[in-house]
C-alpha cells in the first residue's frame, strides 16, 4: 500500500522537478495519441514544444508567446491572491469581458477625438469595470453569506450575453457594413494598445502582467496584508485571532482579481484582439484558473505556467498546420498536460511512503 504523508513545507526540489516530469509524461501519452492518429510522434512533439522557442522562426513565435501568455498571467496573478485566502473567484472570464466592454466603451464614446488621455482613461475604465463585476460576489458574500464561487460563475453567463448584445447593438461599428463587432481600436491611435517594440509581442498588457508578477511576489512575501491573506487561507481561526477581518480580505481579493481580469480584457480588446465581437472572450478567464494552479499559486510559478500554456496554443497551431493534426487532438493534448501537471503536484506537497499494512 502507498500512503501519503503531508510535508510540513512543500518540497522545493519536487516543486521544480514535478512540472518537468509532467511534461515528459504528457509527451509520452500525447505521442502515443499522435501515433494512433497516424502522425510522427517525435516530430509532432518537437513542433509543439521546441519549434516556437528554438525553431527557424522562433524570433516571431517568442513574441507571440508573450502576447498569448500576458492576459493569462495577469488574470491568474489576481486569482491566486484570492485563492491563497480561500476565496474562490471563478468568474474571471466575466470580469475580463466587462473590463473589455467598459474600456472599449470609453474609446468608442470618445471616437474620433485624438488625445493622450484617452488610453489612460480606458485603462481606468477597464480596471474599474472588472473591479465592479468582482465586487458583486464580494458584497453578496459579505452581506448575505452567498457563495462567491457560484455567484461569480453565474456572472460569467450574464457578461457573455451582454457582450453579444454589445457587439450586435450599442457598440456595432456604424461603418462596418452591418456586420456585428465594434470599430477596430488598433486603427484608432489614441485608443490603441500596439506592440511597444515591433516584433517582440510586448504590449501594455504584457508589461502589466510582468509587473503584476513582481508586485504580487513582494506583496505576498513582504507585506502585512499579504501575510494576513495567507494566514486566512491556511488557518481562518488563527487569522481572526491575529486581527484579520475576513470581510475586508473578501472585498480586497475579489476586487483585486476582478480589476486585474478587467485590465487584461481592456489590454486585449485595445491591442491584439482590436474589437468587441461576439466571440471576443475565448476562455482566457477560465484558462487562467488552470494557470494559477499550474503555478502552484506562486507568482513565479504562474508566470512559467502562463508561458507553458501559451506554448501549447502557439505550438498547437503550428503542429496543426504542419503535421495536419486536427484541432481536437491539440485540445485533448492540452487536457492531458493539465491532468499530469496537476497530478504530479502531489509529490511536492506530500511524501509518498510505501507501507506494509494499513494502520487500522
Amino acid at each position, binding site marked *: 500500500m502507498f500512503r501519503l504523508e503531508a510535508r510540513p513545507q512543500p518540497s522545493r526540489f519536487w516543486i521544480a522537478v514535478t512540472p518537468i516530469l509532467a511534461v515528459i509524461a504528457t509527451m509520452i501519452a500525447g505521442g502515443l495519441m499522435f501515433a494512433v492518429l497516424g502522425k510522427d510522434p517525435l516530430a509532432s512533439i518537437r513542433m509543439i514544444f521546441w519549434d516556437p522557442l528554438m525553431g527557424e522562426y522562433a524570433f516571431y513565435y517568442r513574441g507571440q508567446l508573450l502576447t498569448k501568455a500576458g492576459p493569462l498571467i495577469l488574470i491568474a496573478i489576481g486569482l491566486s491572491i484570492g485563492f491563497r485566502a480561500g476565496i474562490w473567484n471563478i468568474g474571471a472570464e466575466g470580469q475580463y469581458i466587462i473590463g473589455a466592454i467598459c474600456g472599449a466603451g470609453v474609446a468608442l464614446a470618445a471616437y474620433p477625438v485624438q488625445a493622450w488621455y484617452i488610453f489612460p482613461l480606458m485603462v481606468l475604465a477597464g480596471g474599474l469595470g472588472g473591479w465592479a463585476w468582482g465586487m458583486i460576489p464580494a458584497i453578496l458574500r459579505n452581506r448575505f453569506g452567498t457563495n462567491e464561487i*457560484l455567484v461569480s460563475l453565474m*456572472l460569467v453567463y450574464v457578461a457573455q450575453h451582454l457582450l453579444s448584445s454589445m457587439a450586435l447593438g450599442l457598440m456595432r461599428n456604424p461603418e462596418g457594413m452591418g456586420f456585428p463587432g465594434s470599430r477596430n481600436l488598433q486603427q484608432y491611435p489614441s485608443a490603441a494598445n500596439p506592440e511597444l517594440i515591433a516584433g517582440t509581442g510586448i504590449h501594455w498588457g504584457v508589461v502589466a502582467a510582468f509587473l503584476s508578477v513582481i508586485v504580487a511576489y513582494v506583496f505576498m512575501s513582504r507585506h502585512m496584508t499579504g501575510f494576513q491573506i495567507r494566514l486566512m487561507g491556511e488557518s481562518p481561526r488563527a487569522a481572526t485571532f491575529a486581527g484579520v477581518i475576513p470581510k475586508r480580505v473578501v472585498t480586497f481579493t475579489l476586487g483585486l482579481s476582478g480589476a486585474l481580469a478587467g485590465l487584461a480584457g481592456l489590454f486585449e480588446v485595445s491591442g491584439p484582439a482590436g474589437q468587441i465581437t461576439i466571440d471576443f472572450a475565448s476562455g482566457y478567464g477560465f*484558462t487562467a484558473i488552470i494557470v494559477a494552479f499550474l503555478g502552484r499559486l506562486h507568482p513565479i510559478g504562474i508566470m512559467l505556467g502562463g508561458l507553458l500554456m501559451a506554448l501549447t496554443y502557439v505550438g498547437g497551431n503550428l503542429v496543426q498546420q504542419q503535421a495536419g493534426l*486536427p484541432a481536437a487532438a491539440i485540445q485533448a493534448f492540452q487536457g492531458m498536460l*493539465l491532468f499530469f501537471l*496537476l497530478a504530479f503536484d502531489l509529490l511536492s506537497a506530500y511524501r509518498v511512503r510505501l507501507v506494509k499494512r494499513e494502520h487500522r
Partner: protein
Amino acid sequence: MMDLSAISPAALVAALIAASTPILLAAIGELVVEKSGVLNLGVEGMMITGAIFGFAASVETGSPWLGLVAAMIGSAILALIFGVLTQYFLTNQVATGLALTLFGLGFSALIGQGYTGIKPPPFPRLDIAGLSGIPFFGRALLSHDYIVYLSILLVAAVWYFLKYTRPGLVLRAVGENHDAAHAIGYNVTRIRLMAVAFGGACAGLGGAYLALVQVPQWTEGMTAGAGWIALALVVFASWKPWRVVLGAYIFGGVSILQLNLQAVGVNIPVAYLSMAPYIVTIIVLVIMSGDRTSAPASLGRVFHASS
C-alpha cells in the same frame, strides 16, 4: 397579428420538457456529486463524451439502448479521471474540472471524426396506452420518449436516496464535514468516487439524449454550453432534487418560450431574456444564503485523511 393564443400551452410544455431533459439529467448527477462535497466543473466535457459514446455505440450496434449504456459507462470513466485526480492526487477541483472539459471536448471530437453525417437508429417513444389522448396532459406530459420519464424517475430516486436511505445520509455527511465523517469511520474517498462516477453517468446520459433523441445527429461541439447551464441549475435548485426539475424547466422554458414567441411574431429582446435565468439564480442564491442547510459545507475542499 401577434396572436399569443396561437401558442398551444400543451405543446409548449411538451417542448420545454423535451428540451430540458439533457440539462436535467446532467444536473441531477452533478447535484449528487456536489452533495458529496465535490465540485466538478467538467460537466460540459462529460456530456459531449456521452454524446459521442452513445451515438457511436448505437450506430455500431443498431440499438439505442446499448448506446445509452455506452454513454453512461464512457462518461463515468471520464469522470473517474477527475475523481482519481481530485481524491487520490488531491488536485484542485476547479482546475481539474476545467481540464476535464477541455479534454472531453477534444477527445469526443477525435472519436467522432468518423460519425458525422450518419443517422442514428430511431429512439422508441412511450405512448402510455390510450393516455396520450387525454386533453392537455396527454400531449404535454404523457407522450414523451422513455428517457424523459427516466429522468423524472431518476430525480425521484435521488431525492429518496438522499433523504431516506442510510447511504444517502452518509453521502450528505461526507459533503457536510468530511473530517467528521472520516472520524466516524466512513471512507470519504470511496464515497466521493462513486458520486463522481454517478455524476459522469448522468451527464453522459444527458449528452446521449441530445445526440440520439433531441437533435439526432453527431456534430463536434454539439452540446454548445449545455453542461455549463446544468452547473448553474444545481445552484439554482439549492441542491434540492425536485427544484432541479423546476429549474430545468424554467431554464429550458425561457429558451423554448422565446423561440415560440418569435415564431408567432412577438418581438423580444433576446439577449436580455437569455440573461434572466442567471440573474434569477443569483437572486435565489442570495435568498437562500440565510438557509445554511442546503449548500454542502465541504463543497470544493480537498480532503486528506492524515491532514
